[in-house]
């Protein structure tokens, strides 16, 4: 179903392309040996190269290159066997060299694809235009001193992958799904931690509007949005602004805008006329990056199973629905958890417990899967207790509540609390006999054809056994005794 914004003059479609900066997971920076560790004292992770001292030269970090190739393979993209680093020239206080080493017309990775998993279980594919490697800038701090800005160069020179999508995105939801999926892929690959709140993944959104079916409109770029939710909000707000401008007889100016999440508006940052002329040219300090097939296939061998493949396998091998499989693979930790629970057990039952009960409880407690009080092993044991009739499904829910609170072992909980299901026919018969003896009138009603009353008897027996009687046996024995 397509996403349409209704303006005063008719329907509008939005067109979005995203540029995502992913900080590469590596011990040292893209062109220097300085550490990439987050949160160190300002200006403590700075080499002579990062500070652009005279005569210093960049040397490319092979690990960052491997990470970029790995990400490219994960995006099913073309790996360019020859790519070139170029200088992007501009002056700023947090850019010591006076240029950023990036890639321009010859990026390391070319076209690829990301499959979006939409909330309704459908999928959509969005093209990747390119992925290139570049240096991050340092950080300017304007709130440390009334007269001066302070500069922290710890981040200066850290490797980033800029991943540029095609303008294939047509709604805020798709933008959200794109970022969610991209984040999942880089996390699966271990090439970026994907933490938007720490800035290790940042997003610029190119937004334009058009009448359905018409050509592209003029776009505006919204810079540096730092959460998926804000990206979705910013796109909608910017699209509505553009529609208002056009419908008011105005024209959209190509420009860079900022999203103010507090005021819920986008603001002009820099017009096209004010745009920098970056004077890109190949960096003469660096040789072109040249790979052979062996280098690429070696990295290919290291690729883990990615979300799309995992989802397909869960559907194929465990009989899960597309939706359930999609939920489970959205985060690698969730998928790993599920796999431990499902191993040697009924995959669908395991998925139910993981998605409905566990994820429900974790969401309520606002706890991530990594901090789940219930381990996958214990959840598996709980399912085993149900399967081998040690406890009923209903008791299992109580046991699960206790596990969430205490993190305990379900076998011990069942043991300690005496929750074992009563499967001894004699004991159940005794309980049934007592209920029948106390309610002769109701027995008559059933025998007169009021079947529903049987349920009431089951309830009474369960109550008198503290819920521990095997419900199936209770049912069968009651029928035998009253109707048999």
């Amino acid at each position, binding site marked *: 179903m397509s996403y349409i914004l209704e303006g005063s003059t008719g329907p509008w479609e939005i067109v979005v392309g995203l540029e995502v900066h992913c900080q590469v997971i590596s011990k040292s920076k893209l062109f220097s040996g300085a550490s990439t560790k987050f949160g160190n004292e300002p200006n403590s992770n700075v080499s*002579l190269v990062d500070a652009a001292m*005279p*005569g210093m030269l960049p040397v490319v970090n092979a690990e960052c290159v491997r990470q970029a190739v790995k990400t490219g393979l994960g995006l099913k993209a073309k790996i360019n066997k020859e790519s070139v680093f170029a*200088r992007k020239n501009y*002056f700023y*206080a947090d850019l010591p060299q006076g240029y950023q080493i990036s890639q321009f017309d010859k990026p390391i990775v070319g076209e690829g694809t990301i499959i979006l998993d939409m909330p309704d279980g459908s999928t959509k594919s969005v093209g990747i235009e390119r992925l290139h490697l570049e240096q991050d800038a340092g950080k300017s701090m304007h709130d440390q001193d009334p007269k001066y800005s302070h500069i922290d160069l710890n981040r200066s020179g850290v490797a980033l992958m800029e991943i540029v999508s095609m303008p294939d995105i047509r709604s805020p939801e798709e933008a959200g799904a794109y970022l969610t999926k991209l984040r999942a892929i880089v996390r699966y690959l271990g090439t970026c931690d994907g933490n938007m709140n720490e800035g290790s993944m940042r997003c610029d959104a190119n937004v334009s509007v058009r009448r359905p079916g018409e050509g592209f409109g003029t776009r505006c770029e919204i810079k540096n949005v730092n959460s998926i939710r804000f990206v979705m909000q910013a796109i909608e707000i910017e699209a509505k602004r553009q529609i208002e401008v056009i419908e008011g007889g105005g024209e959209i100016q190509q420009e860079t805008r900022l999203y103010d999440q507090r005021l819920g508006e986008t603001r002009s940052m820099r017009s096209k006329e004010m745009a920098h002329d970056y*004077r890109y*040219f190949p960096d*003469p300090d660096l040789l072109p990056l040249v790979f052979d097939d062996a280098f690429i296939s070696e990295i290919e061998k290291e690729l883990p199973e990615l979300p799309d493949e995992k989802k397909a396998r869960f559907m194929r091998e465990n009989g899960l629905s597309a939706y359930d499989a999609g939920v489970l693979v959205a985060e690698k930790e969730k998928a790993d958890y599920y796999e431990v629970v499902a191993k040697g057990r009924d995959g669908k039952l395991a998925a139910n417990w993981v998605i409905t009960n566990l994820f429900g409880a974790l969401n309520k407690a606002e706890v991530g899967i990594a901090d789940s009080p219930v381990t996958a092993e214990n959840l598996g044991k709980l399912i085993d207790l149900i399967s081998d009739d040690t406890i009923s499904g209903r008791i299992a829910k109580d046991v699960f509540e206790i596990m969430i609170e205490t993190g305990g072992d379900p076998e011990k909980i069942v043991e300690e609390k005496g929750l074992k299901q009563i499967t001894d026919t004699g004991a159940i018969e005794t309980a049934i006999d007592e209920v029948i003896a106390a309610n002769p009138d109701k027995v008559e009603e059933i025998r007169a054809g009021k079947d529903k009353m049987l349920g009431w008897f089951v309830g009474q027996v369960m109550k008198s056994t503290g819920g521990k009687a095997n419900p199936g046996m209770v049912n069968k024995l009651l029928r035998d005794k009253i109707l048999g």
Partner: protein
Amino acid sequence: MTDLTKLTLAEARDGLAKGDYTSVELTEAHLKSMDAHRNLNAYITETPEKAMEMAKASDAKRAKGSAGKMEGLPIAVKDLFCTEGVQTTAASHILEGFKPEYESTVTSNLFGNGAVMLGKANLDEFAMGSSNTSSYYGNVINPWKDKSGKDLVPGGSSGGSAAAVAANMALAATGTDTGGSIRQPASYCGIVGLKPTYGRCSRWGIVAFASSLDQAGPMTKTVRDAAIMLGSMAGHDAKDSTSAPIAVPDFEAALTGDIRGMKIGIPKEYRVDGMPEEISKLWDNGVAMLRDAGAEVVDVTLPHTKYALGTYYIVAPAEASSNLARYDGLRYGQRVMDDGDSLDDMYMKSRAAGFGKEVQRRIMIGTYVLSAGYYDAYYNKALKVRRRIYQDFEGAFGQVDAILTPTAPSAAFAIGENEGDPVKMYLNDVFTVPASLAGLPGISVPTGLSAEGLPLGLQLIGKPFDEETVLRVGGVLESAANFTAKPAGQEG
């Protein structure tokens, strides 16, 4: 006792080995010579204490029985090489007072091999110039005088290095060459200057001018000295991605003096319009010397030569405009800022005050040729022409082992001459720039005197990483020319 400053590097090396004198004595003699010739302004920073310390340490090392290839030999270091704890200015105001916390790879190699540093030699600001008049620290005066006796330029950019060696203020000096900055001043000062193949010496720790062209090399009294010193400077450096991962040969061993059967190319395109008669004659004499030594002289063609200078003055300023962006007054060097100034104000004031005219001119040219809309017409086209120039040489080297040309179109000119016309100044590099663009090794060897009694050099250009042939042929040329003239006061 002989004047120790008049020794060649090889002689001093051998004398030290025999125990004829010590490094301390050699060094003291040179420090004295530096005192005597301070009027030439060849050094920006003299480091006598450091020199004496290094000399003493060297003598002690030798006493223990170990000696490096440059053990105890006092040299000048062009002030473009970063030297740990010693002011490094690139002859610019913007770096005044800058003391690096690191040692460039080349100087580190030299010092590791025992060389003693006398001081930091003057140069054109950021190595941009052919006359050494663009230095913030004043121009260098060529030790040679013409018949009128007026002060002449030493050439540039390594003018201080060339003057220091010519006036016996150093046994040898490091230079750097981007478009001729070793070879042209060597020619103007009557010494030997060798620009190695691009990638032979590490660029790490050398203040960058044009990264794809910059190359360090020796400036010496003889070809043998150049061979000795290059062997100590060169080598692969993992810190410079463009440094070549190849072994350093024994360059001195290449000086066999035998060039029989070698083919020497003479490119007709270098016989430019208006070439002075004496340069033309110098060249012809060189051809005759090599032929007499048994080489075969072959005409070759380098058809894109006429585009070389224009190409160079696009590529080099383009890279420079970016390389010099880091001098922003923020982290080191000069900062000019008034209360309440913005970041942009600080940039503009610091750079306006810190950079001289020629540097500013090249930054503007470079910024222009890289700007949107002009990139393809200038920079991109220049890269294509550069490729053609390289292919010209490739073609020529299919036929010959080395190419012989004049080093410069004239002898040293008077200070102040050519100053009003930057393009005329740029023409000094017309014979040296093509080899720079092609990354090839080139040596300038003094082979004659002009009518005014000034030294003139011939250039030999070799195949990539074939400095050995360049040195061997250069050695033969040197012997045949028997160039013994010295500047007034330095006669042996």
